[in-house]
């Protein structure tokens, strides 16, 4: 393989390693177990969503609604648990019901996006821009403009989902790793991943090759919706609340992570492991800036922007290969 090809594959990894080196040099606590756990855990929400987003983008789609969707599902999950608290009492059963509600809501939300895009043939950008506004409004309305808070009695029961884990690894990290591994296997080795790439590469070819294009597209949105539900299940236990400011700009962070990871925005090629690296890069930038003095916090966004663009430039050699 040529050096060009290597750079294309290694680009995101190099960027990640560079960030880790910089972080370690700037602050001795950077590599501490505590900090690593913090960064990985907080990456989990965007990360889990970004894995789903990888499939949507690979098949030539886009979903702008995931941030609002997460806020809405979080609100819904809290309302369901608060509402059933008197009947079920604070316990594992109620947590499971909340989880089920989140997964169900995610599935339905993904299905709605997919239906409008495939069956109704409306541009994905427009559909998800619409649902983005709808979910954001709905959560504001549910919260009456304020914040939806999980009943205090419930918080101690649900808290371990974010903060505890096994063998010192917290649950969000474990779930993120599982979702990422599953996503990577599906993308590379399952017919669904192959079909998603074929549809994104050229949907006519896919159609003429007897692939059910609409079904593949629909499934990518449903899969993403379910993963938004999973991310929400991890999110709610952290602060036990949801408001209209929950999940703001998550969609753009997820899309940025996918692209940094080497998936093509116009579809046809996706890699889940790249997305995971993209998510870690984005989280690390924030983390390093917080751990460092001397950079004006006003410039955080600029530094993030530069690193995103650099990471993508690093893998531009794709064109030369064909």
């Amino acid at each position, binding site marked *: 393989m040529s050096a060009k090809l290597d750079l294309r594959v290694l680009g995101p990894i190099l960027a990640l390693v560079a960030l880790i080196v910089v972080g370690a040099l700037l602050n001795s606590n950077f590599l501490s177990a505590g900090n690593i756990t913090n960064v990985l855990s907080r990456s989990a929400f965007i990360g889990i969503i970004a894995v789903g987003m990888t499939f949507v983008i690979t098949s030539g789609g886009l979903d702008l609604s995931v941030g609002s969707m997460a806020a809405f599902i979080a609100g819904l999950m809290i309302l369901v648990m608060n509402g059933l608290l008197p009947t079920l009492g604070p316990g594992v059963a109620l947590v499971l019901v909340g989880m089920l509600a989140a997964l169900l809501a995610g599935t339905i939300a993904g299905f709605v996006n997919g239906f409008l895009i495939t069956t109704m043939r409306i541009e994905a950008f427009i559909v998800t821009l619409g649902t983005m506004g709808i979910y954001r409004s709905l959560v504001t309305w549910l919260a009456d403009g304020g914040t939806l808070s999980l009943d205090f009695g419930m918080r101690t029961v649900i808290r371990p989902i974010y903060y505890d884990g096994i063998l010192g690894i917290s649950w969000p990290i474990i779930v993120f790793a599982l979702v990422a591994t599953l996503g990577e296997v599906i993308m590379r080795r*399952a017919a669904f991943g*192959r079909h998603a790439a074929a549809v994104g590469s*050229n949907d*006519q*070819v896919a159609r*003429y090759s007897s*692939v059910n294009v609409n079904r593949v597209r629909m499934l990518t949105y449903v899969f993403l919706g379910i993963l938004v539900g999973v991310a929400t299940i991890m999110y709610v236990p952290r602060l036990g609340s949801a408001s209209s400011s929950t999940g703001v700009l998550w969609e753009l962070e997820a899309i940025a992570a996918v692209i940094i990871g080497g998936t093509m925005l116009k579809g*046809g090629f996706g890699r889940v492991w790249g997305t995971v690296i993209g998510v870690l890069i984005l989280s690390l930038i924030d983390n390093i800036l917080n751990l460092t003095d001397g950079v004006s916090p006003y410039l955080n966004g600029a530094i993030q922007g530069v690193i995103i663009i650099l990471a993508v430039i690093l893998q531009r050699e794709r064109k030369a290969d064909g």
Partner: protein
Amino acid sequence: MKLTLKQVDRSFGAVQVLYGIDIVLAPGEVHALIGENGAGKSTTMKIMSGYLAPTAGQVLLNDRAVTFADSQAAEAAGVVLIHQEFNLAEQLTVEQNIFLGHEMKRGLFLDKRAMRDKASALLKRLDCNVSPTATVRDISNPDKQMVEIAKALSRDARVLIMDEPTAVLTAREAESLFTQVDRLRESGVAILFTSHKLDEVKRISDRMTILRDGWVVGQHPAEDMTEDAMATAMVGRDVSSLYPVRTRAVGHDKVLTVRNLTVPGYADGIDLDLHDGEILGLAGLIGAGRTETMEGLVGLRAATGSVNGKAPFPNPRAALDAGIAYLTEDRKERGLLLSKGMRENLTLQSLSDFTGLLIDETAEDAALTRAIADFDIRAPHRAVTVGNLSGGNQQKLLLAKTMLAQPKIVIIDEPTRGIDIGTKQQIYEFIHALAAEGKSIIVISSEMQEVIGLSDRVLVMREGRIAGELSGDTITEDRIIRLATGLDGRKDAA
């Protein structure tokens, strides 16, 4: 203005497509250029209008040698080509289209009044009633043709080249076009046009040039030529060695019965039978509805009628499950994923055969090895992206991909389009070998020789209907052309 091609050659890479072409387009004369698909008509027209440069020879305007840098330079010199597919911006108005790229201005601003006046005058000159402010999307095909001509005239075209102007027009619409052509002829414009409809050629042209395989094989005044004489002149060469010798017999079992298949807008009441081991040719002019009929049959388009006694397939997957596969004519846009490797492309249509829970990549690799051997696919290395393969090898891969799904019936649309002669021969052998295995094959081809060389039986389509069926000794180019152009069997189309 007089336009002359003098001893023009043209090659694409190693393939020469034009040999020493001499044509004179005189002012006030309508010149017809006729020949089979692939005879070199389009290339000739593109050289005349600056889209292509000749490899050798000269283009002369009023006897002075000229070199057009591009089509704009040709237009500036008064030579305009009107494409077969309209080159109009559908969302803009008629007058906006007429002046697109050549807008009249007063100072910094568009001079709308002057453009409106000139557009009206041009349309009036063409006796065309369409409003200058109508949106092009909303006007009829002949009106669009008129707008194209008005657009050409607005650029002071003195030489007008029309590529199959009547292909999309009905007989009545074509007649009104010819009235305008007569008018232009009287005003001293030199006109060249191509058509497969030989009656039109007879009707409108003053002179004609007949092309075959890139050579001029005849130039005659129109009055000297009958339609039969034209057809005979267009045909006639011996390529029998290109096609394998038939060594097998067609079976007697019907494997496909299609009745009254209708694809709205393209095909009407198609009946068709296919036997095991048979190669059925589907001939006709471009636009006769052959591709659309077959796409309707396999569920790629909405269709009505019956296929083997049932409703047409709802989607290609259902057709494939019933053992019918369609191999597209457009291998780059519909056949292959050009940015992917050979393995992904090969197994795309039959991925479920390679998938339990996960895809068995070892089995895929084995399938690729087999396909490379069976279909003689020549790739620089196994990981090559398919877009980097030659057209011939792409076509072989597409054939391998389709056959991997193990269909009993294969519909192959233009099996050798844009492929060199050596690979053509290989593909013909593959097709024969498949038939010998007992597969049934439908070949759609616009090349007469191919249809004749391959088929046991030929159906000829014209304007969305079956114009006739030929078999055995009756399969001749002459008969096919007559059916395809409507010389014979005209009552079918009426």
